[in-house]
């Protein structure tokens, strides 16, 4: 198995007495879109900023592209791209100039025109960034992180506060990154975002990882009970079962044989949102 792009073992980070990250382990493989999920204050940004080299850890081992981010230098920065959780761009530069400014920082930048197309800002290339909508600014922000043609991209809550259509456009951009073969480390507190974009995800709550895996399998969703609901002779019935197929077969066979009907028959698996909410609420309230 090739060396992971990001490898974290026993990572800890304290601010005074408060332990924001309490010993987490993670691996992210090359070419993966990895979603780091959790509510506000769970330790997402602290973790991602340690990976980016902005913060020093209190304990544990971290390797990003084979280097310790605390020690890594210019050559390492050539290979990563960063979108911060909040950053206002220089309002007096245009889209093309903002990308040109950042491209100039790298030895082997991606051509600016290509980046403009990639983030879907072709029509706005000569507009000042101050005149862009929030969603467009965020896409430019992603474009600036791509200016150096990095292998690994960090996106810290790229769609927080967006309206649905702006989110969808941002998602299209991120899916485009996957097609380019980039490794993406994405933090989000939206379950649907992880589901839509990520190959794998981990959920962090109160500084600890409470679940990880493919988004569809997070929190052992497969093994959680399925709920069967129906009305029979005016009576509401709700059954939780781990063998929904046999139970349903038996139930419908009996009802058909007796010439009855099941009104409002519903079979529901726990949604990812349910799993997420149950996992993150167990581990305490919003801290910090």
């Amino acid at each position: 198995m090739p060396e992971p792009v990001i490898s974290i073992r026993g990572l800890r980070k304290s601010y005074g007495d408060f332990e924001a990250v309490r010993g987490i382990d993670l691996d992210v493989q090359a070419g993966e879109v990895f979603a780091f999920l959790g509510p506000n204050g769970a330790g997402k940004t602290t973790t991602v900023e340690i990976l980016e080299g902005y913060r020093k850890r209190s304990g544990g081992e971290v390797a990003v592209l084979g280097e310790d981010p605390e020690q890594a230098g210019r050559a390492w920065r050539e290979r990563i791209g960063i979108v911060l959780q909040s950053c206002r761009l220089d309002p007096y530069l245009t889209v093309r100039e903002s990308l040109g400014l950042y491209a100039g920082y790298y030895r082997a930048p991606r051509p600016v025109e290509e980046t403009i197309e990639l983030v879907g800002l072709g029509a706005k290339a000569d507009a000042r960034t101050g005149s862009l909508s929030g969603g467009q600014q965020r896409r430019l922000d992603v474009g600036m992180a791509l200016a150096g043609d990095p292998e690994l991209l960090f996106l810290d809550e790229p769609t927080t506060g967006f309206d649905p259509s702006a989110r969808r456009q941002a998602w299209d951009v991120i899916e485009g990154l996957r097609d380019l073969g980039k490794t993406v480390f994405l933090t989000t507190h939206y379950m649907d975002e992880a589901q839509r974009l990520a190959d794998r995800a981990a959920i962090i709550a109160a500084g600890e990882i409470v679940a990880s895996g493919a988004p569809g399998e997070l929190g052992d969703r497969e093994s959680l009970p399925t709920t069967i609901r129906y009305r029979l002779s005016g009576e509401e019935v709700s059954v939780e079962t781990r063998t929904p197929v046999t139970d349903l077969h038996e139930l419908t066979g009996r009802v058909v044989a007796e010439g009855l009907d099941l009104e409002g028959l519903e079979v529901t698996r726990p949604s990812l949102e349910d799993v997420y909410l149950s996992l993150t609420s167990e581990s305490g309230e919003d801290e910090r």
Partner: protein
Amino acid sequence: MSGPALVAHQFRYDQKAFWRNPAAVFFTVGFPVILLLIFATVFGDQTIDVRGGIDTTAYYVPAIITLAVISATMQNLAMTLVIAREDGRLKRGRGTPMPAWVFIAGRIGNSIVLALIMLALVAALGRVLYGVAIPWAQLPEIVVVLVVGAAAFCCLGIALTAVIPSQDAAAPIVNALLLPLYFLSGVFIPEDELPQGVTDFANHFPVRDFFQAFFDAYIPGGASGMDWGNLAVVAIWGVAGLLLAIRYFRWTPRGG
């Protein structure tokens, strides 16, 4: 790109952003010009009792250039760097391979070029409007004083950002420091009108030293020629500012 090429790259974009920012252009370029016009108009054709008596306008040309240099450097940097820091742009830039010194060098270069532009502009206005001779023979001294002073006030401006907590606080803090010093140092009020105690007090601050050094260079005829002592004091302030900046400058927003 090599270091110098990166600095040139950064400088080019800083220049673009500066000239498109109406507030920055007004305070750096427009405001000193307006002050020159006001002082020249109000105090008209009086004579000021320095250097054996010189025209008011001849006094105010170097005075306003002094102010314009400090405005283009200390004031401009303190304000734009705090804004960029709180916007998260400084932090973002630190996430790229661009070395931190390149960014700072680009900004300092931007400020020094603005200071030189203001020298040319105010000197030309003084010549055209008020007939204040441009001391061409003194040009080397003038440029040396201006560049050393500009660099020193850049360092002081960068150091000052450490005590400015937010974007909103930037202008009040910078003005609260500089405006009184302009009055006390003879930049706004001719120094023959100022009590001795006031100039003695102002002598403790670099605005006064820089003004005296620049005045010496611009208006020849001081008793013993160019006195470099004032400029040395300005340079020492600059080095102190640089050390404080290296120690206390922060790249990440304070508000988060």
